[in-house]
């Protein structure tokens, strides 16, 4: 896969760059360090931001704005009449392939459009490949690297090492192996509750099996694993009765039709009393089943539910109602968004706060969350209680005769499940359950008396037969219920077990991934260890302050230590290093990582990264880049593009600018209304533009371009004939640059004239000093620099342009040694 150098950047209508109809156009070389010098306020940041916008789709500075400041309104240049931004980049593959050009546009409504003039099939994906942490670096990136928390630093570093996807994946696996969220998402508590309910129901069936087995066979049911045997015993016992023989003969209990048997008994002996006895026996069994509910367990459950209600009410009291919950949630959304960044200011009233508002909101929402969790716990507990089952059985029992309208369970279920049940409602339910339970003994006593009376009135053989058949039927029903319960429980338990199996697996997998990620990160850190230490030493020129990056074994934390600090060991880098040393460390780490990276971008753009450095350290950093890091000086090196407004650094750029391994660019202009132009963008274009504007009578629009043209041509003279300038030349008042240049030229001519070394012929000197310079001073400098530009007219400005061209020509001569004759610049004021 090829990597890409940045070959060209064109900008129009973006941030501080207006350049309507005449895009700022900067070319970069892939085999040289590229420097771009721009004085303050001329658009250096706009250049860096344009690349951020192309690659990241956003601008960090605007991301930091609050929503009410409408950051979206500041992407397009505010003076561009089309209200449209255009950025085009050209990228040159390092394998000699075709240049890829990508155009990104943004209109006033914020719509971003990506296209490829060179015909790339998927320009958007191509831009994604350029999105690497090391490609666009500014001072803020470096200063944050040292200041942020070890965890944040570790994650930034992962991105820098090309491991951000590993970091994301590690976090993902941690999230999905978290016990609490997994239990909720996989509904494991619900399953556990279901299992408890099924187990209770199965135990009730087992109790019925024991009772009825004993009543039919006279023997105890001892071993639950032999239920099929016991079923056969029941069939056999009932089959011994002659009247029933044919119904049981050779059949399993499951196949026996007890209704047919009852019909047979009815046919054999007839009579209402026998039927009443049969009903009494069934009713007694039903009432006895109601009595099997475990009063002690139910009592404990009732106490637990009452306690939960009390706890929930206590938590609820600490909250401030639904309306405030909505307010806190909305506030959290605001704080978590990019709309509000000041944690010590209220987003509602904008007053300053003594403590973090995020912490306050989190605390408040935690109270709501705790209350909700308690309410949920209440609902889940109720759902699986024996108490609920007991109340349900009693309310639905026909013998107790509770009318549907008097039943409370359905409403109570709703209250319990939503967690809104009150203490009074719980107390009323306890009383209700107790009252219903108390009805059972009286009814049971009455039914048993009735049964006794019927038994006395009916022939004993028939009584026993009727009872035995009823007990047999109940045994059969209980057996079916028991088997159904066991099957259900088995399915539910299997679902729970397989979820537990997943939890164990994902936890181990997560741990394995984290270990491997940490190891890979360490390998990567070790891979750049020598490089960043060496770079740090090169920049700071110190050998006894040695930084050390330490990756934690079990976390993503990255700690920055000093393994050596003037002989002392393992100390905090943050505590000891000054700002320039910290930045040098961050720059060393980033550049070392960038050099090892194999991502698509093979360029690094550095925006004002030397702000905290003095001239010496700036020099060492630039030399490091020029000699060791830049391609092709270093065969595996990168292309560096250095943006700076630093006057001292510009001297370094100027010195190297003429060499083959350094490409220097200087931008001038009058943003945000006027154009920003590259020196090499051509004085001819500036002149043509002035002529057009002046012809159209647009004098105020032409003025800044006239100024640019003057500055360009005068600095061209200074550069071409090596005219010395004062040390503070670059940092003098920029609005007086034309005068500064003219002064420098006049002083140099005067010096050479006095020394009798001037190479210009007499007419040229005469024209410079007596014609062109006075014309420019009289018609431009005396008005523009003093703010009196309103007196300009189109003919005057055309005259100024002509004068500067004529002035420029005075520093050239006809070289007749060449054929045909060539008009050349003097090498210096004393030499052709």
């Amino acid at each position, binding site marked *: 896969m090829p990597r890409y150098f940045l070959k060209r950047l064109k900008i129009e209508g973006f941030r501080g760059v207006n350049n309507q109809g005449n895009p700022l156009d900067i070319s970069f070389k892939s085999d040289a360090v590229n420097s771009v010098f721009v004085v303050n306020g001329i658009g250096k940041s706009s250049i860096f931001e344009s690349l951020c916008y192309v690659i990241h789709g956003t601008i960090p500075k605007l991301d930091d704005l609050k929503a009410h400041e409408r950051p979206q309104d500041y992407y397009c240049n505010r003076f561009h009449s089309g209200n449209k931004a255009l950025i085009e980049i050209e990228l040159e593959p390092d394998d000699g392939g075709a240049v890829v050009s990508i155009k990104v546009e943004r209109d006033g409504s914020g719509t971003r459009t990506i296209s490829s003039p060179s015909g790339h099939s998927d320009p958007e994906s191509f831009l994604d490949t350029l999105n690497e942490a090391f490609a666009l670096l500014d001072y803020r990136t470096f200063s944050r690297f040292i200041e942020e928390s070890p965890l944040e630093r570790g994650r930034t570093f992962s991105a820098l090492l090309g491991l951000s996807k590993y*970091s*994301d994946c590690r976090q993902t696996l941690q999230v999905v192996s978290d016990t609490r969220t997994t239990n909720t998402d996989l509904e494991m508590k619900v399953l556990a509750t279901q299992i408890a309910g099924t187990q209770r129901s199965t135990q009730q069936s087992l109790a019925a099996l024991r009772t009825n087995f004993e009543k039919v066979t006279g023997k105890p049911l001892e071993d639950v694993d032999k239920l099929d045997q016991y079923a056969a015993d029941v069939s056999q016992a009932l089959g011994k009765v002659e009247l029933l023989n044919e119904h049981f003969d050779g059949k399993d209990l499951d196949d026996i039709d007890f209704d047919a048997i009852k019909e047979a008994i009815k046919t054999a002996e007839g009579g209402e009393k026998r039927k009443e006895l049969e009903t009494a026996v069934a009713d007694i069994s039903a009432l006895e089943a109601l009595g099997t509910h475990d009063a002690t367990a139910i009592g404990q459950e009732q106490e637990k539910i009452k306690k939960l209600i009390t706890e929930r009410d206590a938590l609820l009291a600490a909250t401030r109602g639904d309306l405030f919950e909505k307010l806190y949630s909305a506030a959290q959304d605001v704080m978590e968004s990019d709309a509000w960044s000041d944690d010590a200011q209220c987003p509602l009233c904008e007053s300053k706060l003594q403590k973090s508002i995020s912490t306050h909101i989190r605390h408040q929402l935690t109270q709501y969350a705790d209350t909700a969790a308690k309410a949920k716990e209440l609902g889940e507990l109720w759902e699986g209680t024996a108490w609920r089952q007991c109340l349900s059985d009693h309310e639905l029992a026909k013998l107790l005769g509770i009318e549907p309208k008097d039943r409370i369970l359905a409403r109570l279920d709703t209250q319990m499940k939503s967690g809104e049940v009150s203490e009074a409602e719980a107390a009323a339910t306890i009383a209700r359950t107790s009252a219903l339970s108390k009805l059972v003994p009286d009814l049971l006593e009455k039914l048993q008396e009735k049964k006794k009376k019927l038994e006395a009135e009916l022939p004993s053989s028939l009584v026993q037969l009727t009872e035995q058949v009823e007990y047999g039927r109940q045994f059969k029903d209980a057996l079916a219920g028991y088997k159904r319960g066991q099957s259900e429980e088995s399915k539910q338990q299997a679902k729970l077990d397989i*979820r537990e*199996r997943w939890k164990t697996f994902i936890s181990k997998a997560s741990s*394995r991934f984290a270990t491997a990620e940490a*190891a*890979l990160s360490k390998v990567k850190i070790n891979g750049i260890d020598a490089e960043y230490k060496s770079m740090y030493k090169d920049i700071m020129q110190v050998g006894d302050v040695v930084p050390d990056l330490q990756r934690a074994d079990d976390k993503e934390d990255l700690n920055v230590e000093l393994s050596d600090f003037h002989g002392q060991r393992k100390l905090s880098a943050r505590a000891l290093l000054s700002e320039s040393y910290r930045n040098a460390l961050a720059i060393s780490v980033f550049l070392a990582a960038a050099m090892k990276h194999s991502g698509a971008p093979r360029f690094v753009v550095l925006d004002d990264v030397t702000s905290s450095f003095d001239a010496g350290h700036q020099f060492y950093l630039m030399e490091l880049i020029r000699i060791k890091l830049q391609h092709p000086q270093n065969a595996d090196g990168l292309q560096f593009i250095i943006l700076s407004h630093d006057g001292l650094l510009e001297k370094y750029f100027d010195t190297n600018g003429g060499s083959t391994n350094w490409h220097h660019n200087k931008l001038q202009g009058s943003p945000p209304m006027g154009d920003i132009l590259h020196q090499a963008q051509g004085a001819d274009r500036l002149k043509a533009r002035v002529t057009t504007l002046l012809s159209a009578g647009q004098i105020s629009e032409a003025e800044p371009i006239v100024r640019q043209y003057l500055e360009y041509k005068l600095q061209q003279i200074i550069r071409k004939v090596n005219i010395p300038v004062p040390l503070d030349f670059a940092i003098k008042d920029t609005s007086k640059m034309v005068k500064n240049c003219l002064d420098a030229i006049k002083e140099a001519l005067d010096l050479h004239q006095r020394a009798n070394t001037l190479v210009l012929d007499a007419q040229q000197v005469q024209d410079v000093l007596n014609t062109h310079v006075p014309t420019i001073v009289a018609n431009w400098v005396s008005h523009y620099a003093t703010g009196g530009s309103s007196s300009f007219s189109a003919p005057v400005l055309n005259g100024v342009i002509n004068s500067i061209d004529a002035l420029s020509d005075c520093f050239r001569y006809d070289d007749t040694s060449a054929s045909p004759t060539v008009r050349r610049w003097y090498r210096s004021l004393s030499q052709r």
Partner: protein
Amino acid sequence: MSDFTFDEGKRFPENCADFLESVKDIDPDMAEILKANWDTLLAVVREGERDTKARTTFNEAIAAALDDLLTQETDEEGE
């Protein structure tokens, strides 16, 4: 305990494939489920930002896959 490591020379998807292969020794069935839902998993945290909806979507898919596996195992036992 496996001594699984990522290969510095491989790209992220290739290392992920190796990782998914390696976790088969923990539980081959579960590893298969993780592999089948890997893309859904990666959406849970992107560029350091957690996505709760993506997490629940992933766990729903896992729950469904676990139930399918259970049914499959039950069917095989029944045959």
